[in-house]
Every structure is written in structure tokens, then in C-alpha cells.
């Protein structure tokens, strides 16, 4: 039933996935947060991660760019493959990994600098440009892609903190795009935004799919339904069900999924 509504582009779901997670187990000290999670993240698709509070979806997301490394007690078992290479292999440079897998956070967190400098920071530290004109171009392209160029092109050197919440979040997206990652991770990016700003970001996510693979954690089921092609439902650290979004929301296979998405869970 779902296949009727996929465009030709979306049928690329069947192509090799950008990231594979195999039997991922995550521990915070003695406490286990994720149990044997296996999930494929298709390229150029948006995958939504849903589930009740504390189910492990944010922890899972943070495993994808090794942000859990910051937590001293975090232990990861299993494999997370990016283009076939395990990102937890000892030879992997975390700093380089994060140029391939970027992240946007729940609360917009621009640096207390100018708009230009915010977007330019990534390219600067990774030396991704040859001269000033190059850098200007990168900044402009990223702001364009984030749908923010028109609104800020005349005030690039003003502090980023003067932008509205929705604009700040789009700036954070532009900042993440500027290093040209393959995958963009989003941890509830719209939860601090009003409906119009939310709609703009969702539209942006749809456009970004052309060039990036996106994984988004959201509490908002309707948002997951709107923006994603694949949805994964987590519960108490287990991946209960994952599938094409349309199918999952009309005929979920697992009773727990059904209970959660219809609001009977609890």
C-alpha cells in the first residue's frame, strides 16, 4: 500500500544504506540504555526516531556521531557503519568523523559571534577553503541551502543572537551544512520553535534530502509522519519496529507501536 506513494526518487530506499547499525548495545556504567539495536539508514532519505521519553532514541542518535564519547561512563558495543566502515574502529579520528556526520540540537545554540562567523567556523577549523572569496562562497551557499540567505544577507556581521528562534535554528543547520557532511543528525530540532518556524524547518528538511541523509529524533508523531520516509519506534532501549513511514502509521505491525502512535500507551 505504501509503495504507491513513493516517487521514483524515493524508491532509492532500496539502494545501499548510508549507515548501518548492527547489534548496537550502549551502557552508561552499569545501566544498559540500548539493547541489540540494528537499523539501516537509507541514503538521501529522512529517518525519524520516535518513542516515549527515556526510550533511548536520543542516545542512539548520539552514537551515530560518537557524541557519547564525551560521557566518561558510556560504553558502546556493536557496529556502526558509515559507507561500510565502522566508526568505532580504533583507527577512526572522531574529529574527522564529525565532518561527515553533523548534528543540530534541540535548543538553537549559535556561537556568540556574527552570523558569518558562525557558518564559517566549521570550514575554518577544518581548513576547507583556499582564500577569503572561497570562504564567502561557502558561507553563502550554506545559508542559501538553509533557506536563510535572503533574510540575513544584509547583516552577515551582526551577532547571531539577534535572530529569532527559528532563524537561529536554521543558522545552526547552515553551520552544520557548511562542512559538507554526508549525514545530518537532528535531535528534536523544532521542539523550541513556533508552528511557522517549525513548518519552515520541515520544508528545509525535505529540500536537504536531495543532498544529505537525515536522521531526526522527534516527540511529535505528526512531524515524524510528515517529514520522514522511514520511521523507527524505540521503547525502553529496544528498537520495536522500523518501516516505511506511511505503512507504519496506517498499519503498524507491533502492538506496542500501535499503542504508542494512537495514544493508548501509558
Amino acid at each position, binding site marked *: *500500500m505504501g509503495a504507491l506513494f513513493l516517487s521514483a526518487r524515493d524508491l532509492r530506499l532500496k539502494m545501499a544504506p548510508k549507515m548501518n547499525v548492527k547489534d548496537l548495545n550502549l551502557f552508561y556504567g552499569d545501566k544498559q540504555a540500548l539493547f541489540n539495536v540494528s537499523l539501516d539508514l537509507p541514503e538521501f532519505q529522512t529517518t525519524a526516531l520516535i518513542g516515549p521519553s527515556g526510550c533511548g532514541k536520543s542516545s542512539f542518535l548520539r552514537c551515530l556521531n560518537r557524541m557519547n564519547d564525551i560521557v566518561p561512563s558510556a560504553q558502546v558495543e556493536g557496529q556502526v557503519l558509515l559507507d561500510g566502515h565502522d566508526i568505532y574502529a580504533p583507527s577512526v579520528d572522531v574529529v574527522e568523523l564529525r565532518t561527515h556526520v553533523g548534528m543540530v540540537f534541540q535548543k538553537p545554540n549559535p556561537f556568540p559571534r556574527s552570523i558569518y562567523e558562525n557558518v564559517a567556523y566549521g570550514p575554518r577549523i577544518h581548513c576547507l577553503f583556499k582564500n577569503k572569496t572561497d570562504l564567502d562562497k561557502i558561507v553563502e551557499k550554506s545559508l542559501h541551502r538553509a533557506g536563510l540567505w535572503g533574510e540575513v544577507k544584509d547583516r552577515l556581521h551582526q551577532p547571531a543572537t539577534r535572530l529569532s528562534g527559528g532563524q537561529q535554528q536554521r543558522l545552526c543547520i547552515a553551520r552544520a551544512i557548511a562542512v559538507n557532511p554526508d549525514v545530518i543528525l537532528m535531535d528534536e530540532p523544532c521542539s523550541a520553535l513556533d508552528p511557522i518556524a517549525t513548518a519552515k524547518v520541515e520544508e528545509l528538511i525535505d529540500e536537504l534530502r536531495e543532498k544529505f541523509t537525515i536522521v531526526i529524533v522527534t516527540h511529535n*508523531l505528526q512531524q515524524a509522519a510528515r517529514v520522514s520516509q522511514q520511521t523507527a519506534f524505540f521503547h525502553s532501549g529496544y528498537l520495536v519496529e522500523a518501516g516505511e513511514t506511511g505503512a507504519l502509521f*496506517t*498499519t503498524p505491525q507491533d502492538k506496542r507501536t500501535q499503542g504508542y*502512535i*494512537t495514544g*493508548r500507551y501509558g
Partner: protein
Amino acid sequence: MNEHIVKAYDEELKTLHALIRHMGEKTVEQIRKAIQSLIERNGKLAQEVIDHDNEINLLEIKVDELAVRILALRQPVASDLRMVVAALKISNQVERIADYAANIAKRTLLLNEMPPFPGIEGLSTLVRIPKQMIEKAISAFAASDVDLALQVWHMDREVDELYNAYLRQLFDTMITDPKNIGPCTQLLFAAKNIERIGDQSTNIAEAVYTMVTGKPFKESDTLKK
């Protein structure tokens, strides 16, 4: 299945469900009365049926409004969504069945202006199965029973056969004596309405099937039976 966390949502779904059942019960009653009025040549009863049809129309409007409201405000998904969509379809179909019943009652009034005609009894035989079909179809909806729905679907074959046999009878009668054409035409219409009741009931069964399984109804699925 658990209750919804939001009780009001549960109440709305239950109300929708109940409205469909109510419509079904009333319609079955209308069919019964219409056939009775026809057989007994009871003009008063027929008029009752015709007047009562409006109530069922109002019920359909209520179902529509409530369903749209639930869709807008609750954004139902999965089983809830399928139930609401089924309710919309089924209310439409039941309302049509009720129209057919009212139409049959109209035949009564017209036939009463003519002398009594023997072929009428055949109709009470003809109506038996369609009446069962709509009863069972509504029950299948009420209980989310796929097997019952498939049963209903299969019953239509028999209705078609009986209908065709009855038609042949009427044609024979009309050919025998042109005087019979008048009453026979009315009986023809009544029979047609009864056949349509059977058809619509299969539509209801198909809607119930989709509601429970989430898949569109395909004939090949019935072969499992």
C-alpha cells in the same frame, strides 16, 4: 485494546461507532417495515417508512461531522484512522440502503392503487438474504470481524441468482397478460432495490475488511475462504 490516554478521544470514537450501529439497526427496521407494508398492502405503514427516512439522513450527516471533527482535531492514525474512514464509507452506504427501503415503501403506495397481485409474496423470500447481509455486515463492523465480513461478501452470489430467477418470473407474468405490466413493473423496481441492498451490503463488508486488515479488498483474498 487499552483505552486512550485522552478519555475524550475515546468517547468520540465510541460515539462514532455507536452511530453506525444505530444507523444499521434503524435501516434493518426500515427494510422490514417496507416489505411488510408491501405484503399487507398497508399504506399507513408505508408512509411511516417514507417519512422516517429523513432521520437516517440526519444520522449520516452526524456521522460525517463527527468523523471530520475527529480527523481534524485528533489526527488519528493506524486502527483509529481506519475505523474513522470506514465509518464515513459505511454511513454513506447504509444511508443508500435506507433510501432503497423507502423506495420499496413507495412501491406499496403505488401498488395499493391497483388490485391485489399474487407475485408480491416472492419478494419476502427475495429480501431474506439481503436483510441478513446488512445485519451481518453491521455486526462485522461492530465486532471488527473479518470472517463475518467475508461471509457477507459471499452471500451476494445467492442474492444475484434469486434475483435473476424472480425477474424471469415477472417477465413471464408480464408476457402472459399485458394487464400485469402495471403491477409487475412496480415489483420489478422493488426487486431491483432489494438486489441493490445486497450489493451495498457487500460494499460495507469490503469496508470492514479494509478497516481490520489495512489492505484494500481484492477478490483474490476471498478465495482463502
